């Protein structure tokens, strides 16, 4: 029995014709798996390697470079909440915001709430600097995040 579902395997394979080399599907494949499983387990690395005619070490090498993909010990919660800490946001209170979110959620930066709902992260400039301090909810921007807005956002994400 394969570890990855047929659906995931098909979605990965659908990327292959787009590129002259199968290795180029590594990042799309990692994203597909990571989005769904909230981490990339070793079994998945092996099967991605198999699908792309690579050695598992090659997939792992690429994956570990990005620090974006989580291993099973650090599985992501349902929503990944990134607080930007780079200059434009830092000048407008990002450090306080990150600390506020950390306290509110009761987790250190990088941690996941015990109900598995939210993982808190810091990010480097997320390209929403006109709305500093800004956060990213998975891959969507929320701008001008006051502490009150952060509380409301966290409430909403908890009820999702």
């Amino acid at each position: 029995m394969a570890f990855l579902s047929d659906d995931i395997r098909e979605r990965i394979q659908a990327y292959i014709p787009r590129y002259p080399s199968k290795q180029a599907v590594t990042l799309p494949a990692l994203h597909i798996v990571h989005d769904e499983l909230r981490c990339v387990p070793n079994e998945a690395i092996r099967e991605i390697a198999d699908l792309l005619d690579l050695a598992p070490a090659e997939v792992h090498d690429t994956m570990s470079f990005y620090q974006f993909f989580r291993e099973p010990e650090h599985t992501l919660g349902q929503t990944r909440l990134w607080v930007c800490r780079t200059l434009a946001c830092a000048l407008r209170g990002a450090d306080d915001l990150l600390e506020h979110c950390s306290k509110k959620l009761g987790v250190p930066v990088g941690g996941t709430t015990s109900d598995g709902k939210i993982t808190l992260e810091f990010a480097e400039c997320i390209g929403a600097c006109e709305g500093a301090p800004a956060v990213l909810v998975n891959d969507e921007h929320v701008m001008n995040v006051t502490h009150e807005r952060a509380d409301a956002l966290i409430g909403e994400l908890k009820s999702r």
Partner: protein
Amino acid sequence: MSFEPTLLARVNKPDSHRLVGYRGDGGYATFETALRDKKPVEVVNQVKDSGLRGRGGAGFPCGLKWTFLPKDHPGPIYLCINADESEPCTYNNRILMEKDPHQVLEGIMLACYAIKCERAYFYIRYEYGTAYRVLQAAIDECYANGLLGKNIQGTGFNLDVYLHRGAGAYICGEETGLIESLEGKRAWPRIKPPFPAIEGAFRKPTIVNNVETLCCVTQIMRRGNDWFKSMGVPPDPKNPRDAGSYGPKLYTIAGHVNEPKCVELPMGVSMRELVEKHGGGVWKGRKAKAVNPGGISMGFVDVNAKIKDSNLTEYDIPLDFNGPGRVGCLGLGTAAVTVVDDQTSMIDVLHNVCQFFAHESCGQCTPCREGTGWMLKITDRMRKGQGRREDLDILIDVADRMGIIPGTTICGLSDGAGWPVKTLIRKFRSEFEEAIKSGRRSVVKSLPLVGIH
């Protein structure tokens, strides 16, 4: 005289992201005309003669880069669109993609026709999820309407455009880091030469262009070179190597201003005008102290520093390709302008910048990997009130020694890591010295950050 934006002209229209809206504003007519009536080389020549220089940070002449491709190459040629946009305080590509995706797609079509490329890879940073979905929908519309795919409008021209998402790494914006990442490897920049135009993605000749550059291509082909050259700054006659700074430019304003926003203006607006007029002035009734002219990699200016033999200060320099260099900055970069007010500790600014580069160095070259790490450690110590007298000289020394300019590293990230450090310390030395002497702590939040970062 009021200036009419072109690149941003459509952003607030209700249908700005849809094909009907774009068509309604005359979109794709330029591409269709070029496809029918122009030879690829004519498109290359027009872009070359327009004086368009790349908007991604390096400012390399766009059409000239296209001519570096091997002539009559039998195999595939690729275009990589650089939408990694990760230079801090830069966000104009995001607006262009979210609000007017067809403008950049038309630029891609024109560029691909010009360079005879049948497959374009659009590398977009992961954080731009909204832009990714808007672009995918726009690309789908193009396929459904015969603007992409095989034998486009019966002309025999084929073109596929594929979006490729990044995974949160600044270095994927460096063009060869981007190519390695696209190929499914670590985003380790390559040693150049060979440049991508000779050997790039999948070992084939490749052109890498920024999103704003390609939007300019659309408008140049539509409006002509006279239009493009009616804006901006002509080449400096005393500098035979200057290619001029023509055209409109998107400036992003951020930091301590009342109205942070992206504005389109003719290249060459002064920093003072940009901040005071377009950014609504410095917030809370305060004054500016330092401004960063083009993304943090370019370094900082001291707004109060007089320029020799004039009444002007560094705040008055024009934001064209040459202006920032005249006051010790690395260049125009991404034209992202960040303002720091007079109540802010420069140690905090320095620390924040060092934190970014220490996090983003890809680790291949020792001076960059170790240098960015040590610069962060030293500035962290300074923030805690434990700075030492020799620290400032050590920082400048480290910053001066890493980069492709001194010739010690593979890519420009490390030049960009060094420049803010040396410009901040050189320009605000007395503030740093005073802080070290007094042992003052600046605000320190030491949140425990999980080790996986």
